[in-house]
């Protein structure tokens, strides 16, 4: 009796479960012919953006596994990575050595920030997403303070070119020409006129394997236990707070590497704004790929980045051709991005409550049945 009931319900859930990527797919599919871009251009752009942006999105997976929702705190990791890049630019270290050293420099900063983030999120149980969102803004303020007032004054900077004319404080835009394309071009293939940054993809694959490997370690199992049910995990002797903090630290460190990869592709760093969008865009991309606040997989990552950035590419042109204004296309894209996040969050919350309600009903019927049998 009970089995049949659930079977029917599960079937109708396919569309609601995957509403977001499906909807997005429809919008993008409609927009591509509108934009008038050629297939080869789109494929080239897509491969480029996948290599550039996927890593940041990957860093979101671990906290979701640990039940902490969408970690808006990856902005902290981005800032850490950027600090590393500022130093290697100042010290004049180019190419892959530069990237590696930037990563090494950024890692302790990222660990520290991740630890802080973890502590804050542990104190704000149940409101992790808002808290990480606000924390991102807060640390951004501190980052700006460090960048504008401490660099060059208290923190020695060698090259005056990267400082503001008054003598201290990092410039708004720092040229990363020394590492531009360092990772991408190290090994690249040209297939049919499309340049593929092989090394970058190798790095991405490496970290995908890393994430899968983590899932099977004791730490990973702990995280999943915490993610499923905090009370049960606690009873099983898992140090819940520590596990949650570690998941955030991992996420932050990965985000710092992701930001480095992102910036080496762009070649220029907007010191005070490059990291802001890391959080919002990565989370939007992940949600577009079909992830929810409670569950995310590698497929979600890559599908999401592809769809989300496809929309990015085609909106201006599509807007121009459809309504006559590229600006409108841009606004439409912003609206769709935020609307998608809203929708994904709403759907998740609704489903979670429905699930809780069903579980309660199920428990009640089970208890009633037992009581009935006992009588």
């Amino acid at each position: 009796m009970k089995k049949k009931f659930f079977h029917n319900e599960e079937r109708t859930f396919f569309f609601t479960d995957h509403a977001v990527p499906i909807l997005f797919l429809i919008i993008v599919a409609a927009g591509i012919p509108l934009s008038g871009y050629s297939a080869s251009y789109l494929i080239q752009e897509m491969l480029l953006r996948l290599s550039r942006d996927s890593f940041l999105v990957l860093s979101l997976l671990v906290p979701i596994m640990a039940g902490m929702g969408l970690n808006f705190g990856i902005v902290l990791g981005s800032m850490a990575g950027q600090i590393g890049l500022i130093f290697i630019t100042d010290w004049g270290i180019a190419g892959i050595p530069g990237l590696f050293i930037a990563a090494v420099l950024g890692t302790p900063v990222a660990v520290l920030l991740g630890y802080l983030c973890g502590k804050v999120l542990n104190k704000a149980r149940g409101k992790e997403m808002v808290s990480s969102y606000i924390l991102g803004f807060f640390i951004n303020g501190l980052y700006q303070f460090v960048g504008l007032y401490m660099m060059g004054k208290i923190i020695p900077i060698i090259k005056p070119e990267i400082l503001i004319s008054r003598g201290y404080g990092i410039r708004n835009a720092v040229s990363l020409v020394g590492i531009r394309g360092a990772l991408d071009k190290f090994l690249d293939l040209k297939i049919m006129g499309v340049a593929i940054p092989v090394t970058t993809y190798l790095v991405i694959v490496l970290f995908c394997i890393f994430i899968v490997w983590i899932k099977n370690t004791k730490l990973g199992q702990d995280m999943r236990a915490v993610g499923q049910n905090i009370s049960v995990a606690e009873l099983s002797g898992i140090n819940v707070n520590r596990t949650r903090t570690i998941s955030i630290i991992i996420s932050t460190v990965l985000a710092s590497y992701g930001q480095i990869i992102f910036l080496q592709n762009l070649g220029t760093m907007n010191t005070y704004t490059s990291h802001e969008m890391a959080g919002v865009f990565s989370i939007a991309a992940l949600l577009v790929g079909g992830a929810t606040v409670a569950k995310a997989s590698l497929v979600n990552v890559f599908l999401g980045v592809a769809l989300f950035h496809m929309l990015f590419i085609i909106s201006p042109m599509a807007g121009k051709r459809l309504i006559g204004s590229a600006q409108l296309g841009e606004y439409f894209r912003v609206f769709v991005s935020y609307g998608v996040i809203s929708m994904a969050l709403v759907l998740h919350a609704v489903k979670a409550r429905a699930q809780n309600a069903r579980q309660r009903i199920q428990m009640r019927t089970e208890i009633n049945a037992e009581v009935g049998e006992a009588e």
Partner: protein
Amino acid sequence: MEKMRRILLKFIDEAGWPRIIIGFFLFSLFAIAPFVGVRIDTSLKDVFVRVGMNGVMVLAMVPMIRSGCGLNFGLPVGVIAGLLGALICLQFEIVGMTGLFTAMIISIPFSVIFGYFYASIINRVKGAEMMIATYIGFSVVALMCIGWMLLPFTNPIMVWGFSGEGLRTTISVQGYYQDVLSDILSFRIGEHFYFPTGMFLFLGVCCVGIQLFFKSRTGLAMTAVGKNPDFARASTVNVDRMRTHSVILSTALGAIGIIMYQQSFGFIQLYMGPFYMAFPAVAAILLGGASLKNATITHVLVGTFLFQGIVTMAPSVINSMMESDMSEIIRIVVSNGMILYALTRKELYRR
């Protein structure tokens, strides 16, 4: 002596360290000001004007907090309603006080409609309201960006000159209702001090109105829903309907609030202007002592004063001392720091 210590500790406990630290900080800023060349009367004027400007938007936080919907990060929804009211008033060239109140009155139906839809989503996501409210606010602002470009307004001060396509990003309200409210019964002392009595009277009226509302039956029901939803439901209060009312009320106050802001600021800000407008209001009410569950008029007034005080005084004093512009950073750190503090406090009653 012992009794004084206990009273002091109780005050600290209730007020919370951040408030005390910030209050102290603000006081010391005022103390230092004359020594660094910042006039106290100018500063006081700025602070008072800003308190009047922002007061109603901070007040808009109260209904939703009381009804248990959390902090209204979706304030931009109300702001958009107010913007529509203001634009329509400008379109029909209604000036002066009439214009101001017309704008407010026109924005009310918009607030009700928007608030209703906003509330229907909020009601379905109990427990995750704040995050979703933030993104609903963002989505609406982004959607209206498209709207501002397409809506058929024709008044030349509102639309771009040559192409006539789409509203301008900033529209001046000079000649319409700039300062009409502030100037009522206002007074000046000397050359530098100006007190916008009219704005404070209006703010006072709104505060009294809200206070009375919460003493009414609907208001009490709303508070009950926030404090203990199950108990409220058992007392035959329709929880969802109360929450909807609170959202609509918050939205309407947000609409009125932005119009108040405009009449003092002098400009209507469209497109991405309203994007982040919720955050200062949230920070202000938290700074005033509100929590995620409880908010009173005192919190609104104290919080707005402290917040705007810091945001006004700290940059001007520090800029004079150090010759650099830290205003943005101070605002970011203080407002977000306050919100974080509120989010990470242990609540005595868990939902």
